[in-house]
């Protein structure tokens, strides 16, 4: 009887130690869908107090030569892509404007919780190419993965903060619906089958992000008046930051220039 009691005390002690040890460790293996969280108060944006940030991302320096992507490994891809595919890791227009840069509000929104949009963000595997190449999504917003191709893809977001996963999608398979629960700039995405396919996902906790268009411009609107750190990320050129003060009903300019060699 005594022994039994002693054993129980010992095991309880061990369990507590174990639990303490676990909670101290950073958990990288969180579930894809978070457990139910207590009700939160979402920050209400008052349109009377908001303004926007607009700008252009530029690249100065020698423009990269267009590099053709060789898809001959999978003839079905060559056919599905309709014409030559070019490397899109650094796409600079004639006037130096830079597309596919990810711009987001890095600081200034602390303490505010934003409602998760109900509409999913879609990434399509089409022509053996991820479309779009760069995309933003809010934490816990649904990412819809579509395969429009006549071949099998295996999308693999190589997340480091979020859970890393990969999933096979054959021709005609239903879209996948996944979520990222933690902010992460940026998640590099590859296809496990087609080595040339790449995409980048920016996961942020608010709706204030943009991807620069073909002409290098972007706009982040409906932002409450205040001072923010705006950051821009480009897959080859790294990141830059700026302080921007937004006032109600005004558009504040925030331009970025990456210097090439």
């Amino acid at each position, binding site marked *: 009887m005594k022994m039994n009691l002693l054993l129980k005390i010992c095991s309880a002690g061990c369990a507590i130690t174990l639990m303490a040890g676990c909670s101290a460790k950073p958990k990288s293996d969180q579930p894809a*869908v978070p457990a139910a969280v207590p009700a939160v108060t979402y920050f209400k944006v008052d349109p009377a107090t908001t303004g926007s940030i607009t700008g252009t991302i530029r690249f100065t320096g020698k423009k990269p030569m267009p590099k053709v992507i060789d898809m001959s490994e999978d003839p079905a891809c060559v056919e599905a892509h309709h014409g030559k595919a070019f490397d899109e890791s650094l796409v600079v227009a004639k006037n130096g404007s830079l597309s596919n840069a990810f711009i987001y509000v890095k600081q200034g929104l602390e303490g505010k919780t934003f409602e998760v949009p109900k509409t999913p963000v879609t990434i399509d595997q089409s022509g053996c190419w991820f479309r779009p190449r760069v995309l933003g999504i809010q934490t816990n917003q649904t990412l819809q993965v579509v395969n429009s191709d006549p*071949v*099998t893809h295996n999308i693999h977001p190589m997340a480091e903060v979020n859970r890393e996963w*990969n999933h096979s999608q054959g021709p005609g398979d239903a879209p996948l619906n*996944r979520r990222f629960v933690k902010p992460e700039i940026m998640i590099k995405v590859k*296809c496990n*089958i087609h080595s040339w396919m790449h995409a980048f996902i920016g996961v942020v906790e608010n709706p204030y992000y943009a991807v620069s268009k073909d002409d290098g411009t972007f706009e982040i609107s409906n932002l409450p008046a205040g001072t923010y750190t705006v950051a821009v990320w480009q897959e080859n050129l790294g990141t830059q930051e700026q302080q921007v003060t937004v006032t109600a009903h005004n558009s504040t300019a925030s331009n970025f220039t990456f210097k090439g060699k």
Partner: protein
Amino acid sequence: MRQFPLSPCKGNSWQRALEAFLFCCLHPVNWQTLMYMRVRLRDCRVGLRETPRMSAFPRAGDVDDMKAEGNPDAVTPTRKIGLRRLAAVGLIASSTFSGLLLLSGCKSKISDRPIGNPVAIHVPLGLPPVPIPPGNPPTADSIALGRKLFYDVRLSKDNTVACAFCHNPSLGFTDGMGISRGVGGMMGVRNAPTVVNAAYLPLQFWDGRAVSLEEQAASPIADPVEMNQTHEVSVSKLAKDSTYKAMFLKTFGPGPVTIGRVENALASFERTILSGNSAFDRYQFGGDKTALTPAQIRGLALFQDPKRGNCAVCHSIDATYALFTDGKFHNIGEGVGDDGNFKDIGRYHQTKLEADRGAFKTPTLRNIANTGPYMHDGSLKTLKEVVDFYAGGGNSNPYLDKEIRAIALSGQERGDLVEFLKSLTGAMPPNVGPPAKD
């Protein structure tokens, strides 16, 4: 190695002991077999009939694996002498008891054992001898009866569905459907697996819920979404038919038609549905180096290379034969949902072991070109899709088998693997199609 194919949980412990004894008399037995028999019989005793601890194809490595998993049953080969003695003593003891039991002349229930002379089942090139359970030696009569039953729609509720409905010989003993259907178009839950070479499998069904062909055979007859007919009704339908009456009498001797006799006859017929002597077999085991095309030879090399395709790690090719299955259960991620859960939890149904969630039995690859669509849920339509699925590393999930990972394979290499898979199509034996009308 010869497996121990008896159904350990059938009958009482005395019958099991007797079966074990007879098995040891009839077969060369090594320590691995004894180990396996001990584990199976113990599992049965403690009510774990669905949880065999070791495959029926135990190899030296299995013991190490089990040890690594912290399995208390794992014994190192250095202990094998002691073990053999232990097992031998146990078996002598049990056989003595069995002898006493026989002498006491206890009358058992109606025998399901065929009465005719056992026949040898012809094995084509590339396959090992067919394991035969001691209680059901195949006879010409039991095989013929099983064949008739296999193609008989009267075993279904509305007389429309025979075993061959889902296991159609012209479709490699499958049905060509993603998910199989039963009587009245009832939707099943899984893809019909082939019957070809099922004789070699230690466990039947995708989740291994039957330990023998005998145990498997009658299960779909009573399944509400398959043939949906109780065994009582099946037996009474057959007993009313004079042809069957004569066949059962000839096969099993006097006595009524029983579901046990139906099971034994079906199982004996299924043991004859063997396919080997494919182009691969002629290349690998027949010494014909021209049997495979250059692409197929490259595909075979990739298939076996642990650092490349690594397919043979589960789809086994042995030194003298190839079953293209390890008979075990693996999670490759097929069927995992967006939430990380499996709609069909597979082997977990039987074992309730976390590691078995989403794990399904490795299917044979023989005649694979004729048995699409593929996977337990029939989700992959072509062999190219299957190869792409594995090249991509399947679908990640917490229970993914450690052997599943993305493999860098060029387009040509993936094509070579598909070509190799096509070389596994072998001829069917002559007498496995529908029997001639009486």
